[in-house]
């Protein structure tokens, strides 16, 4: 293969860009925006190039994940933690989504707060690098490093930019996430010590799982109820469930989404929200095949609860950002449901849906941001008849709305259909309830769209003007992708399905004990 | 012998309590004199005559005299002056009696049998941890001062030297904290 460390570049390039930004004087806003866009574009090009050159590799005994473009270097040799990166069909799409959404965010970044533009752009680029690292890492310690390190730029972005109550909302998110991550840290440590491999490398941990009778002593917890693997899985699962979020852990989400500006939400809702789902597939399915089978009903039920709960909450809200936040929660439920069906259909649907949802939610939050900036309100009841004032936005919004409720011909339909197929394979009652969620989705999305666009104008919407060309150019690619992936979903499916079937096979059959020595 | 040691220890403890509990500073200081003297007596009873002498001269003597001087300097009020009543006389008589007893026994040689207080058991062979290297007879034969000096300048030379640095630090601190500010510096 070629010698260029492309994966490292995807991590280092944005962070280097952030450092470069510090050299630009803060008042040269157009230079700052230019540099940011250039770096984001470069990373997007790399991600795209790698994705479409991703070789179809069969899993082998020593490489159960069939990672491509691997890079491996010693990091802390004494504890066999290595700098190990790799790309597969799952992470490939998410990396592409990551870089794409950050490019969109870089293009859409608001000029209004010129004084702090440099800090915002720099933090954004650092976040992009950290998220890319999380997606590419194939070593548990390295993964954890990026997983928690990503919170640093996110903390400063979320707490520094947005609505008046952002500080509290951010702190809630951070403390929630940290608590979950730290549990995962202990789980990682236990895996490390219990596994015969004594390595943090994901693949060698998959090959050398901890013995079933391994000991774990936590006074006060009756370990005999669950196997130690189950407890460790719960440690991982809580971290991922908080980040996803699954329903009992979702309380940080609505307020944070409401307080954050649209640009932040493009990548925060678009890609950070997918990290939990990614973690479940990448680590939950591969490291804990037996535990995930034990718990799949629980998590599938939680996912369906999330779908319905999010949908009902979206229906009852009047704040447009809050509606979108709950809609997002509901859609994330679909992704989670797809994962816990543990079927190829479900998981490939989940992967596709992660990409789709990232595109759609980014477009929706951008639109909500544009509307809010023009009308000065987010209250649905104060707005109506925008189609007369904003015909261009009306069209773009219509497409995004239809995609969001899973209309055939938009990208979302493909993903949701696959997830539903998987759900039916798991058990029809779950699928039926989840279908109920899509019905409510039609209801609240159309309510949102009609409420905003139709009917006579109201005072707040009297004097608004349509989106500018630059804003339209940010939205247009997203909307084009929605339609393109809707009518021609093959490229996504071609890469997602083999990856999905591979993860399913890892999850369904506990790996046989290693026949070769370690 | 063990009983005598026990009484002296008790006296040391009681007078130490007296240092903390008495309301007048001079009483505290005098109680401290008794405590330090009793510690000295314990040294004597344990066959450490050199340490006994050092303890008496330095602590009960020099240090305490300074203490009492300073207290007298700072606190010349009449009510702080000790008033002797019958209790004090009993105390003084007890201390004096014990001291005489100690000197008499010390003159006649001090030996312990294996039973009794734990403090007297040091050197007992049956003690599982013990690999004691200074049996009293051998120390007496070699000479108390010589043994201490030999130890101090061989095995414990490093702590001994560190102590000198410690004194220097203390001296600097005392000078710094009490020094008056020069005008202009």
């Amino acid at each position, binding site marked *: 293969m070629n010698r260029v460390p492309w994966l490292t570049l995807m991590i280092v390039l944005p962070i280097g860009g952030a450092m470069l930004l510090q050299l630009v004087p803060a008042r040269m806003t157009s230079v700052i925006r230019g540099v940011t866009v250039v770096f984001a574009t470069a990373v997007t090009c790399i991600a795209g190039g790698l994705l479409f050159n991703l070789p179809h590799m069969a899993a082998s005994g020593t490489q159960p994940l069939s990672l491509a473009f691997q890079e491996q270097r010693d990091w802390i040799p004494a*504890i066999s933690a290595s700098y190990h990166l790799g790309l597969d069909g799952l992470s490939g799409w998410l990396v592409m989504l990551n870089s794409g959404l950050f490019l969109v965010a870089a293009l859409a970044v608001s000029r209004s707060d010129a004084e702090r533009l440099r800090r915002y752009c720099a933090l954004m680029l650092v976040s992009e690098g950290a998220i890319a690292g999380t997606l590419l890492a194939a070593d548990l310690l390295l993964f954890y490093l990026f997983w928690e390190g990503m919170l640093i730029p996110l903390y400063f972005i979320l707490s520094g930019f947005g609505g008046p109550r952002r500080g509290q909302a951010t702190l809630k998110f951070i403390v929630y996430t940290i608590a979950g991550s730290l549990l995962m840290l202990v789980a990682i440590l236990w895996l490390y010590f219990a596994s015969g491999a004594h390595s943090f490398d994901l693949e060698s941990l998959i090959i050398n799982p901890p013995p079933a009778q391994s000991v774990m002593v936590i006074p006060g917890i009756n370990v005999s109820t669950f196997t130690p693997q189950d407890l460790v899985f719960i440690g991982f699962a809580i971290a991922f469930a908080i980040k996803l979020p699954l329903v009992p852990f979702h309380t940080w989400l609505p307020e944070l989404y409401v307080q954050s500006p649209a640009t932040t939400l493009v990548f925060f809702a678009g890609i950070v929200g997918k990290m939990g789902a990614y973690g479940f597939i990448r680590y939950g399915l591969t490291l804990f095949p037996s535990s995930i089978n034990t718990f799949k009903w629980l998590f599938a039920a939680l996912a369906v609860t999330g779908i319905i709960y999010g949908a009902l909450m979206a229906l009852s809200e009047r704040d447009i950002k809050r509606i979108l936040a709950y809609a997002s929660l509901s859609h994330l439920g679909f992704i989670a449901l797809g994962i816990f069906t543990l079927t190829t259909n479900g998981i490939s649907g989940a992967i596709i849906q992660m990409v789709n949802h990232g595109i759609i939610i980014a477009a929706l939050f951008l639109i909500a941001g544009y509307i809010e900036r023009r009308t000065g309100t987010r209250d649905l009841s104060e707005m109506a008849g925008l189609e007369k004032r904003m015909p261009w936005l009306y069209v773009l919004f219509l497409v995004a709305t239809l995609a969001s409720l899973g209309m055939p011909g938009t990208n979302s339909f493909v993903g949701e259909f696959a997830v539903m197929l998987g759900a039916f394979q798991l058990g029809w009652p779950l699928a039926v309830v989840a279908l109920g969620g899509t019905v409510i989705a039609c209801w609240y999305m159309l309510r949102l769209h009609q409420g905003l666009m139709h009917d006579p104008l109201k005072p707040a919407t009297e004097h608004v003007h349509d989106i500018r060309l630059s804003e339209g150019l940010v939205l247009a690619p997203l909307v084009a992708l929605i339609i393109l992936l809707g009518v021609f979903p093959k490229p996504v499916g071609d890469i997602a399905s083999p990856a999905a079937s591979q993860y399913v096979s890892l999850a369904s059959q506990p790996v046989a004990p290693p026949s070769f020595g370690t | 012998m063990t009983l005598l040691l026990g009484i002296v220890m008790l006296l040391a403890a009681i007078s130490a309590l007296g240092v903390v509990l008495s309301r007048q500073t001079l009483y505290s200081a005098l109680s401290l004199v008794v405590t330090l003297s009793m510690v000295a007596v314990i040294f004597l009873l344990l066959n450490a005559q050199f340490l006994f002498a050092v303890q008496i001269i330095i602590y009960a003597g020099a240090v305490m005299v300074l203490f009492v001087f300073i207290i007298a300097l700072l606190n010349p009020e009449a009510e702080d002056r000790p008033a002797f009543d019958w209790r004090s006389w009993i105390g003084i008589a007890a201390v004096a009696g014990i001291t005489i007893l100690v000197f008499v026994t010390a003159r006649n040689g001090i030996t312990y049998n294996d039973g009794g207080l734990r403090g007297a058991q040091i050197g007992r062979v049956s003690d599982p941890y013990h690999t004691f290297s200074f049996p009293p007879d051998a120390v007496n034969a070699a000479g108390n001062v010589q043994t201490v000096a030999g130890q101090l300048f061989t095995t414990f030379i490093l702590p001994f030297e560190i102590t000198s640095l410690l004194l220097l630090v203390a001296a600097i601190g005392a000078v710094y904290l009490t020094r008056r500010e020069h005008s202009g510096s």
Partner: protein
Amino acid sequence: MLAQSAPLVPLVTPSANDLLDLLPELIVGFGFIALMLLDLVVGRQRWWLAVAAIVFLAAGFGASVWGWFDSGNGHTLYFGSFAYDKFSMFINCVLLFSSALVILISPHYLNRRGIHHGEYYALILAATLGMMLLAGAMSLMVIFLGIEGLSLSLYILSGFSRTEERSQEAALKYLLLGGFASGFLLYGMALVYGETGHTQLQQIGAALHSTTQADPMLLAGVVLIFVGFAFKASLVPFHTWTPDVYQGAPTSVTTFMSVTTKVAAFAVIVRVFTYTFVSLYSHWEVIVAVVAIASIVVGNVAALTQTHVKRMLAYSSIAQAGYILIGVAVGTLSNTSSSITGTTGVLYYLAAYAVTQIGAFAVITIMAGRGEDLDSYDGLRGLAYRRPFVAAAMGLFLLSLGGFPPTVGFFGKFFVFAAAVNANLTLLALWGIAGSAISVFYYLRVALLMYQRPKDEQQEYPWSRTTIAGGTALLAAAAGTLVFGILVAVVFNGAQAAQNAILPAIASTR
């Protein structure tokens, strides 16, 4: 008067090699005395003293690095009184580095506070010497003298601002409670000596190893020694002096003592407990674990409600001590062949803590106003707008204290928790994690404040200018925090080598 018979112990003079192996300590000790004399020469050009102090510390650092390579598997000096091993050299390096950073930030601060006297530098070196002695101590005597050496210097240093009541109060409080702690320590040492008949750690270890039963007197001695150390490391419930003394003392002194005292105290705790009292592990494990948990809980909860950075850092340092103590509570247990042990974790944590905590306090020191410390939370608001680099450095230190990757603080926690999991003490690790999750609140709160807009844009801001020396110190601390968080292997391998060569070696039966 003549000795009739030969002295009990044949008079052996210590070899010259012993003196040579003591080179790092000798250099610093010489520097201490030389600085006192230099003070007479330099007149009002006191910054020369700082230069000289840094030269001595750097020379000591060089000697320690030389000692690291020279000591091999380690041996004792002066009849088993002192250790010449990689462990003490590792600690020496951390101590000397920290002291040098403190000296760097001191002159400017002392000038602003109007307490720039020559004794300061001498006393810092004296305290450093005491800590180095503590790090290498192999005898109860040297341990006691080392503790007294560092304490005496720190008593004076915390009262260094003679006209300020709060500083005097801090000094007095520290002195009284420190004297109390010394009493406990001596009592414990006396009991241990009485039971084993030895003051040298190696012989104590051997004597303890030869028996299986533990005498109550011996255990009482062990506990009392731990109490004495716990005072110095400010562990709960012996922490009450910490916030007041940290706040009252001049900030540069607080910087110094919050870091170096803990490093030295934990060095001696590891040597005495993990390695000397190893055969009594089952007896002291519970006590140490409970103290660790108590420190984590009390430190973190109390830090939540603080409104001054110095006090917050004081309480957080109590919690940090709790995390480190987890590494001690693990002892030498290891269920697997993994190389992560409690001692390695403690050493890594100490290095990480030193570089981070020095940085955090250095920011407060550097920003100090004329005559007073500006360490209230409100005083920090908007720092990022006036002093972007100082604020960024402070943010980095706070993140490292909170244990965020990729800073060195994360790996400190990581290795300590890993050691706990490795020893099947997962519950301890979980307590540590609960504490870390709480700590995120107050660290990030301060970090956020610095990045908020100042209340009044036009307001005159009181923060001092950053001097070149102060900037260098900050840069060094920040670089250490970040670089060692990425190139983890450098420090980790060092900690491991130090752990492997520590004296006294573990008794073979465990």
